[in-house]
C-alpha cells in the first residue's frame, strides 16, 4: 500500500475523532435551539465555565477567592481538600443546573414571545456576563484538567497498524475516550427525548408552545430542563477540550467551530450535529493533508467556514434540518 494512502487513513481517523469533539459542542446548541428557538451564543462560555468550575472544585479552590481576599484583606485560596473527580463532576452538574434555573428565572422567562434576534442578543449578553463571573469566581490562569481520562498514544492501535501497514498510527487515547463518551451522551439524550415523560414534554414544547400549554405542560419547567441538559453537554465538552488543551479562556472560542457544524448538519437535528461534526473534522484534516502544503498550510482555520458557505448555497436547511417550505 502506498505511503500516502496510509497517511491519509491516519489523518482521516484523527479527523473523525476531532469531529466528535466539534459535534459535542454543536449538540449543546441544537438542544436549546430545538426546544426554545434560542440560538445560544453562550454555549462556548458555558463549556469554559463548567470546566473552570470542575477544576476549581476538584482542586478545592475557594470560589470568589480573589474577591474575598481583596475585601477582607485575608489570604485564602484553597479549602485544603481535594475532591475526587467523580464527585467534582456531579457537583459541577448541580452548579450547571442551578445556572439553568437562574438563567430561566432572570432572563428568558421575561422574554417569552420576543423576536429570535432579541433572544439571541440576550445570549450574547449572557456570554459576556458568564465569562466575567467565571473569571471572578475561579481566576483567569490556565489550569490543567485531569479527571483521570487516559492520555497519550494508544499502544494497541499503534501495534496493530504497525503489524498491518508497517507504520504505527498515532491515535490519542483521549480522543478515543471522547468518542465513546460522546456516543453514550448522545444515546442517553435520544433515549431521554424518546422514552421519558420529560422528554416527550420537551419535544412537545419544541414543536408548538400553545399546544404544549393546552395539554398541561409547564413551559418554564421544560426550559429549565433544556438549559440544564445544555449545561451538562457543555460540561462534557469542557472536560474533553480542557483535558486536551488546558482550561483557559480560548475554550469559549470552540463555540465558533460549532457554527459551520450546525450549518452543515442543520440547527434542529441531533444526528445532524454529529454527522456535521464528523464531516468537518475529516474534511479539514484531509484538506490540510492534501492541499495544505501547496498553499502554505494552516487551512484548519478557515476550511470549515468555507465548506459551510458552499453548503449554505445548495442546502440552506443543512443535511438533516427541517425542510424550509414557503407557502404562498
Amino acid at each position: 500500500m502506498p505511503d500516502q494512502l496510509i497517511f491519509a487513513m491516519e489523518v482521516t481517523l484523527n479527523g473523525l475523532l476531532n469531529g466528535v469533539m466539534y459535534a459535542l459542542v454543536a449538540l449543546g446548541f441544537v438542544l436549546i435551539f430545538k426546544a426554545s428557538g434560542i440560538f445560544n451564543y453562550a454555549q462556548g462560555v458555558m463549556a469554559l465555565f463548567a470546566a473552570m468550575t470542575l477544576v476549581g472544585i476538584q482542586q478545592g479552590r475557594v470560589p470568589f477567592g480573589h474577591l474575598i481576599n481583596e475585601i477582607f484583606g485575608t489570604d485564602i485560596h484553597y479549602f485544603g481538600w481535594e475532591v475526587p473527580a467523580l464527585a467534582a463532576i456531579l457537583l459541577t452538574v448541580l452548579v450547571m443546573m442551578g445556572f439553568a434555573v437562574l438563567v430561566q428565572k432572570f432572563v428568558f422567562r421575561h422574554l417569552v414571545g420576543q423576536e429570535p434576534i432579541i433572544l439571541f442578543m440576550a445570549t450574547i449578553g449572557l456570554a459576556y456576563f458568564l465569562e466575567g463571573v467565571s473569571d471572578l469566581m475561579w481566576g483567569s490562569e490556565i489550569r490543567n484538567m485531569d479527571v483521570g481520562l487516559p492520555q497519550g498514544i494508544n499502544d494497541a492501535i499503534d501495534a496493530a497498524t504497525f503489524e498491518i501497514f508497517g507504520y504505527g498510527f498515532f491515535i490519542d487515547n483521549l480522543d478515543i475516550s471522547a468518542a465513546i463518551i460522546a456516543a453514550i451522551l448522545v444515546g442517553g439524550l435520544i433515549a431521554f427525548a424518546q422514552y421519558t415523560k420529560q422528554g416527550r414534554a420537551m419535544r412537545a414544547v419544541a414543536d408548538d408552545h400553545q399546544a404544549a400549554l393546552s395539554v398541561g405542560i409547564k413551559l418554564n419547567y421544560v426550559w429549565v430542563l433544556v438549559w440544564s441538559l445544555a449545561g451538562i453537554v457543555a460540561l462534557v465538552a469542557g472536560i474533553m477540550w480542557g483535558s486536551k488543551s488546558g482550561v483557559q479562556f480560548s475554550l469559549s472560542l470552540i463555540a465558533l467551530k460549532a457554527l459551520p457544524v450546525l450549518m452543515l448538519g442543520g440547527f434542529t437535528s441531533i444526528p445532524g450535529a454529529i454527522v456535521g461534526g464528523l464531516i468537518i473534522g475529516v474534511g479539514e484534516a484531509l484538506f490540510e493533508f492534501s492541499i495544505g502544503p501547496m498553499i502554505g498550510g494552516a487551512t484548519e482555520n478557515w476550511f470549515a467556514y468555507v465548506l459551510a458557505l458552499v453548503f449554505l448555497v445548495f442546502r440552506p436547511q443543512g443535511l438533516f434540518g427541517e425542510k424550509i417550505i414557503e407557502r404562498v
Partner: protein
Amino acid sequence: MLDSTQEGYTTEDGRKIGGVVMEMRNITLRFGGVVAIKDISFDIREGEIRAIIGPNGAGKSSMLNVISGFYNPQEGEVIYRGSRRPPMKPFQVARQGIARTFQNIALFEGMTVLDNVMTGRLNHMRASLLDQAFWWGKAQREEVENRQKAEEIIDFLEIQHIRKTPVGRLPYGLKKRVELARALVSEPSILLLDEPMAGMNVEEKEDMSRFILDVNDEYGTTIVLIEHDMGVVMDLSDRVVVMDYGKKIGDGTPNEVRSNQEVIDAYLGVAHD
C-alpha cells in the same frame, strides 16, 4: 359558594343533564381600550353540550380562552366545581381537567399521531425519572395504561390507519380529529372545542358532529363548543349562548334562541328570511 349538586334537567332527546360544573360570573375582558367581553354570565352543566355562537368578532374565542386560562379577565369570576378559580396559567387549567382544541389547530407537527395523542396523557404520568430510566414498577404500569387509553381513543375516533404518520403530512380534516383525540385522551371533565368544523366539507362536518355526539354519549364529557355553522350548532347543542359585540344577547335551548328577536336581528334573521 355554589351548590354543584343542584338539580339538572332532561333534554329533548331524553338525556339527563347534571348540576353546574362551571359558572362564568360577570366576566369582562379588555385588550387596552377594546372590550372583547362585556359583563357576561352563564353556566355550564355536567354532561351537556353547550354552544357559544355569534357573528365574527363577537368575542366567542376570547370567552373560550378565558375558560382555558389563556386569557385572564379583568373583572368577574370563574367558578369551577363550586369554588372560585384564581387567575391561572393555561397549563394549570389543563391539569384541572379542562382540555381544548384550537381554531387554527395546534398540533405537534413533527410527531406521529400516536405521539401527539400520548402527550395528552402527560398529566397522568407520575413515575420519577429514575423509574422511567430503569423501566420498572410505576413507570412500566403507567406507560402500558396510558398507551391503552391512547389506543382506545384512536380507535374511537377512527384514526387507526394513520397512527404512525407524522401529523404534518395529514389533511386538514384528519388533523382536526387528531387534535380532538389528544384533548379527549386526557379524560377531561370539560372539553372545549374552538370551531371544530371550521373549513371542513359537508362530509367531514357530519363525521365530526357524529364524533362530538358520541364522545358526549360514551364518556359523558361536558362539551363547550364554538361554531359558525348554525345548522350544526342547532342540531348538536343542548343549550346555546349567543354573543354579539362582546355582549350576551341570548341564552337557552336552540329553539328558544331561534325565536329570540334580538338574536334574529343580530345574527340569524339577516341570513335567513
